[in-house]
């Protein structure tokens, strides 16, 4: 009985540890500079996705944007396809959620 209890406890501990590791990995914050190849605004206007071509690797990364300020810049085309962007985003599974999304150019 005691042996079974010990095994259950060890398994529970392993499960908890692995979940904690997964959670840490899923909350990874990344940053990149890239050129926008596609912008898609959601029908309700409350979110958008932008596909960025990473300037370093050439890989395409899809970022989800939900902050009003950036969404407004998509709507009035202050940010358009072809613009170069500096972004910080949180990777959680397959979803990359923007934490910062700014044009690299100033004046």
């Amino acid at each position: 009985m005691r042996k079974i209890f010990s095994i259950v406890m060890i398994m529970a501990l392993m499960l908890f540890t692995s979940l904690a590791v997964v959670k840490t990995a899923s909350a990874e914050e990344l940053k990149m500079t890239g050129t926008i190849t596609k912008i898609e605004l959601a029908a309700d206007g409350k979110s958008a996705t932008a596909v960025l071509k990473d300037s370093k690797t050439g890989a395409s990364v899809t970022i989800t944007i939900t902050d009003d300020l950036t969404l407004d810049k998509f709507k009035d085309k202050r940010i358009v396809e072809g613009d170069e962007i500096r972004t910080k985003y949180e990777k959680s599974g397959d979803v990359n959620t923007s934490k910062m999304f700014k044009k690299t150019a100033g004046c």
Partner: protein
Amino acid sequence: MTGKIAVIIVGCALFATAAQAKDHPGKEEILKDGYQGPKTCEACHPGKAKEFLGTVHWKHASKIDHVDNINPDEEHGMKDRIYTMCNGNDIVNNLKEVPPNALGKTKFTGCNTCHPGDHTSDVGSTGPQAEQAIDCLICHSSKYDFSKRKPVKDKDGKVVMTQDRSTEAAANIGRPTIKNCMVCHEAAGGGAMIKRGFSMTKEAEVHVTKGIICVDCHKVKNHKFPTGRDPNNWAHDGIYMTCTGECHSATPHTDADYNRHTAKIACQTCHIPKTGGAFSKDFTKWEKQSNGFYEPSTLKREVNETAPVYAWYNLTVKNTPQFIGPKGSRSDGKSKIYPFKIFQGKAYFNKKNGQLLSMDFAPPIANGDSLAGVASAAKILGIKDYEPVPGWQTIYFGSNHQVSPKNKALSCANCHALNGVLNFKELGYNSKEVEKLTNPELYFEKLLKLQQENE
């Protein structure tokens, strides 16, 4: 009294919002005949285009009489200033195409990118052509398509700035919104929130939370904008604004102790406890970006991430190659303590006369060669006798936006505790006075009572 004023302000803001939502008179005509630029506006607003050409927004300059070492009979400003947040100006960094970088890429850049003309009629231009080149809609339209405003080369190879002159943009006009202003004012100095580091959002600025927009405080008269007294913002339209007057009284607090402070402490000192943006830049060292272009190396913080510095300010400005900032003292009878965003920039000085040199950004953007930028700027300005040596300049920017909610303003202990934000010794108080000013006797009972009320 304060409550009454707040009700009036919110009322005005709501009225303004309602007025904004209502169609601008003449919409029918615009929809029928289309938009032909300023002459369409002038059908109802005659003389406004010419009037606008006389403002700082068009000239990027004015006569300046509050800054040291500036001839008060000449006009200066963004047009021709040299300092280390920008290290260039409209003249040396006139909108242009930069040379190809190592990847063969090129792009357009220039300090006058935000100028509301078409670049053919540029900063300070006058006459009928300039009047018709004004981009009225970039400030007045809520449906401006910014993808239509971009630098391009015309058929003669000259760089021009296109505009959105669509009927849709023209049919949706009114008082400038926060967005109309921030399109240009948030992007100055090399990117979003870099130069001044304030955000005009509901989250960051209590006036915006209450529905107040930029032009409710910067009450425009004949296209002339009242400004505050930022020691690094020199050109002006001849009208100034303060917190007190129409909106807030000189004794706006219910607490008499707080009201007593207003004689020597500016409103901003307690009500704008944080600043942000770039706090240091090095124009002698350009960093290569992943796109192959270079940018001046910059240390930056987010909005609301930096503590300001505090100094006496009598609204006149010390201006030397190494320092731009407030003049004033505890004893001059004119100064108050203000908060400032402090910035330090490194650039090249002319060893022959000690003056700060300017930089044309086109060469270093393409290849990182900052000395080539200095050489190009010297050529444009006709400076032949110079020897560039690197050095630092300190600048105090006014901290006049991003007013915090009342409960986040500085309170007694924020300044009068031993670890308070004000350095009384540096502000000119002697040891005995500092001891008195940092004695809990000053605030203990008051704060204890407040604490008990809140528990």
